[in-house]
């Protein structure tokens, strides 16, 4: 299996090189970012997930401790929300940690043609921080809703409200990094309001 992955990696590198040489930049962006995402999922995600889950739990726990609403057991990546009728332990696993979003954002950024290397490094770090904090905020909101309204609201808090909040921040980040910057930097060329000679 490892051999297969290495072969796929070499083929992917060669494809990127060919696309770069032939000037097919859009395809280079698509294949490059998708390929890099898969290879990061293979090799980096297993290493990063656990510490990231713990970090999300720990930072969300700081808010919980501050407002005295829930406890954090970051060693186990679990948040504990005590209630009278039902106590909820919220486990932060790999799909909750934001690792997939972080890797996807990074992959697309590094193949996006707009920024130079230093800018990509800075934007990537800021993007990771934003996604991380958005995830913390999402979890905090879910826990807060459960704390006040009980486990009956868990489905709404987690499936609808929390995700919408997270998507909203993510989309804002993507828009700012990929769309807004590109519009600002795009050279639209010189323009005029018609032939001034004919007006005379």
């Amino acid at each position, binding site marked *: 299996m490892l051999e297969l992955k290495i072969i796929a990696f070499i083929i992917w590198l060669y494809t990127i090189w060919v696309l770069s040489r032939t000037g097919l930049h859009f395809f280079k962006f698509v294949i490059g970012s998708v390929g890099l995402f898969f290879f990061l999922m293979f090799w980096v995600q297993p290493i990063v997930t656990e510490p990231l889950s713990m970090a999300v739990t720990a930072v969300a726990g700081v808010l919980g401790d501050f407002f005295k609403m829930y406890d954090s057991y970051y060693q186990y990546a679990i948040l504990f929300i005590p209630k009278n009728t039902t106590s909820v332990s919220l486990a932060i696993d790999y799909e909750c940690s*934001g690792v997939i979003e972080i890797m996807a954002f990074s992959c697309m950024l590094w193949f996006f043609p707009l920024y130079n290397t230093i800018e990509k490094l800075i934007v990537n770090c800021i993007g990771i921080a934003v996604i991380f904090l958005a995830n913390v905020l999402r979890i905090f909101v879910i826990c807060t809703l459960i704390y006040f309204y009980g486990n009956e609201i868990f489905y709404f808090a987690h499936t609808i409200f929390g995700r919408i909040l997270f998507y909203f921040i993510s989309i804002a980040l993507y828009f700012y990094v990929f769309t807004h910057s590109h519009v600002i930097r795009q050279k639209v060329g010189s323009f005029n309001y018609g032939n001034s000679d004919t007006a005379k």
Partner: protein
Amino acid sequence: MKKRLFKTLLIIVCILLIPFPAFAVNEGYIPIHIDGYFDDWTDKAPTEVYPGKNPPPGKINYVKLFRDESKVYVYVQFAYKNNQDITNMIINLYTNMGDENYFLVPDYWFDATDMTEQDMAPRVDSGADTGTDSLAPDISTEENGGTGLSDQGPSPEQGSGAETAEPEAPADQKIYANLEQETYMLVADNINNQGNNAGIADTAVTSLDDVLDQLDPSNPDTLVDPEDILDEMIPDATTDSGTDTPTDSGIDTSTDPGIISATDSGIGSATDAEIGSDINSSLDSAVGQELQTGNLDLKKPGHYGTWSFTVWSGLHPVGSGFYTREEGEPDQMELFIPLSSITHHYDGITEITMKIKKLGPQMVMCAGADTEPYLGVVIGAGIAMLSAGAYFHKKKQSGSNKG
């Protein structure tokens, strides 16, 4: 100048952010061990579970639920005014991948159905290899008056409820006839393993096949409710054993919770002939004797110690745990349940709700909070690709205009 300073600061902050996730890794991380020691639960938050409304403090049970990728761990600190025990205790697990009910059965000898957990091993070496007696109940002739290894069935002193139901039936069928063959194999394999530890199992294996040949689970005439049999595994104690009862191996059960129902002599004292002569009667005497003289009697006042028990799902043992009663302290219990007992695709279990109705109606919930990440990634990728497409299109246009 300001811009440069800002950029430098930004880079420094970014570099500092990179190792941040590693900061959260606790080097002292210790997973929960189901070992009869409850110290790994002390820092976990409990849920109050109690019957009725507004109970006095002494009647509140404290329940803790944790899970990892493959197991659920449960801890119960029983109420001080405890009239509970694990008898007829049913644990209900409700998950997004299915529900399952579990009931707890005290082990009639230690480690009888311990199949998986390495940390479940007793903290002392047992068996003949180490010179200490096994913790398995005695199946030697000395302890059962010479009747246990014969074909005549148990002695009158060894009678049990299961036996009185059909007194004319052979002893092995009376006790085991209605157990599933898999469960029966488990019990029998354990006997063999115990024998292997003592270096005396070869003949026992041969005899075991004969036993299984005799067993006819499809025969409805021999049906006895399996739960009745399992209930009989909580015997009426007729011997004193508890915190002050040392075993032959010189181990005091009060100081080592890993030792559960140690009897006066273990399998190590049996001989090849004793084991090999008739495994049917050996099985019967092992269980039959323990049904009578087992030292687990939680209802008896002043009965202290630590006992192991097995978690059953239907007729399948799936997990195990420990129950401790100490003088002046509330009873405590810990156990694990593998998620594979609910579904084989337990990776998909994100929500677990547990209810122990015997303790109270309150539920303990353990849930994930995933972001549905792939949907988010698809949305983000759509935005990025549209932007990239627009960028290249404009660039191409501007290039062609220049040309």
